[in-house]
C-alpha cells in the first residue's frame, strides 16, 4: 500500500545481479533507499536530491489532497466516517517517519 514507509519487492540488484527481495523505503511518495536482502547493497538517493524531491512532492500532495478526498468519498461514502478519521489520526506519525527517511545517513547512520 502506498502509505506504508517500507515495502518489499523482488527487484534485480545492480551489484550482485540477483533477482531477489529488496526492502524499499519511502519518504512520503518518494523512494528514499532500497536494500538488497541478498548482498546488503543499499541504493540511496543523495540527501539533497531526496529533500528537494520530497518538498516538491509534498507541495503536490497538499495541493491535490482535497480533490483526492472528495473523489474517495464519492466512490466510497463510508470513508468519510471510518477511513478519513483514521487517516487523520495517523498523519503525525506518518510525517515523523517521513522526516526520519530524509536524514543524512552519514550523520545518522541508524537511518
Amino acid at each position: 500500500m502506498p502509505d506504508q514507509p517500507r515495502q518489499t519487492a523482488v527487484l534485480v540488484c545492480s551489484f550482485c545481479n540477483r533477482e531477489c527481495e529488496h526492502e524499499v523505503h519511502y519518504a512520503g511518495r518518494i523512494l528514499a533507499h532500497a536494500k538488497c536482502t541478498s548482498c546488503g547493497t543499499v541504493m540511496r538517493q543523495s540527501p539533497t536530491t531526496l529533500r528537494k524531491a520530497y518538498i516538491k512532492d509534498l507541495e503536490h500532495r497538499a495541493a491535490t489532497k482535497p480533490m483526492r478526498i472528495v473523489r474517495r468519498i464519492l466512490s466510497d461514502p463510508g470513508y468519510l466516517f471510518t477511513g478519513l478519521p483514521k487517516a487523520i489520526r495517523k498523519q503525525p506519525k506518518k510525517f515523523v517517519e517521513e522526516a526520519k527517511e530524509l536524514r543524512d545517513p552519514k550523520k545518522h547512520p541508524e537511518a
Partner: protein
Amino acid sequence: MKKHRQHTGRTAVVLAAGSGTRLGAGANKVWLPLGGRELATWSLRWLRQTGLFDRYVIVVHPNEREDAREILNRHVEVPIDIVDGGKSRHDSETRALEYLAPSIESGDCKLVLIHDGARPLASPSLVRRIVEAAESSGGSLPYLETAHITGSYSGQQLVRVQTPQVFAAAPLLDAYRQAAAEGFEGSDTSMCMERFRPDIPVRVVKGSAQNLKVTYPQDLVMAEHILAAQGFSLK
C-alpha cells in the same frame, strides 16, 4: 449515472502476475508504490486515457487477486476483469487470451493490446501510435535502437523490443493455441506470433526511452522523476 462505454472492439491486457512471485521469491514489484499509487495502476490510467479500449483485463498472481481488486477499485475508474496468471509470462498471456476467447470468436473483440505491468510509463500517445499501426497491418510493437553492438553481432542493427504490443485478436488466439499444442513458450507476444502466424505482418513503431521496465531499484527512482517532471500526467 454511469457513462456508456463506446464499443471499439479493442481489449487491453496488462500482465501483472510478476516473475519474482512466480518463482516464489517474494513480493511483486508491480504493487510497489510509485508516485502515490501502485505501479501497475499507472499503465491502466494511460490506457484508459486513450479512450481506445472497451475492455480491460489484468492478469495477477492468484494469491494477489483480492489485494489487486481493492487497489484497482481505488485507483482505476473503469471495470477491470481480473484473470489468474500462470507459471510464466507466456502462460499468463495464454490464460488471458483463453479468457477472452468467447468474445474473440464471436468477433466482438477484434484487437488485443498486451502490456507489461512493470512498464508504468507507456504514454497515451505511444499507445495510440501502436494501435493505429496494428489496425492497418494486423500487428504492431514499439522498439528502440541499441546504441553499441560489439562481438558476434557487430555491424548488425539490433533493437530492443518494448510493450505494449498489439495484434489482431483472432490470429493471436490461434497462435497461442498452436503454441500450447506444441509446448512452445515465447519470451514475448511477438515471438509467438512470428513463429505461428508469420502471415500477419507486424509493423514496428519507434518506442520511447521513458517507457522503461522497472527491473532495478534505480528504475523506480527514474520513473518517479519522469512522472513528477510531467506533473503526473503523460500525454
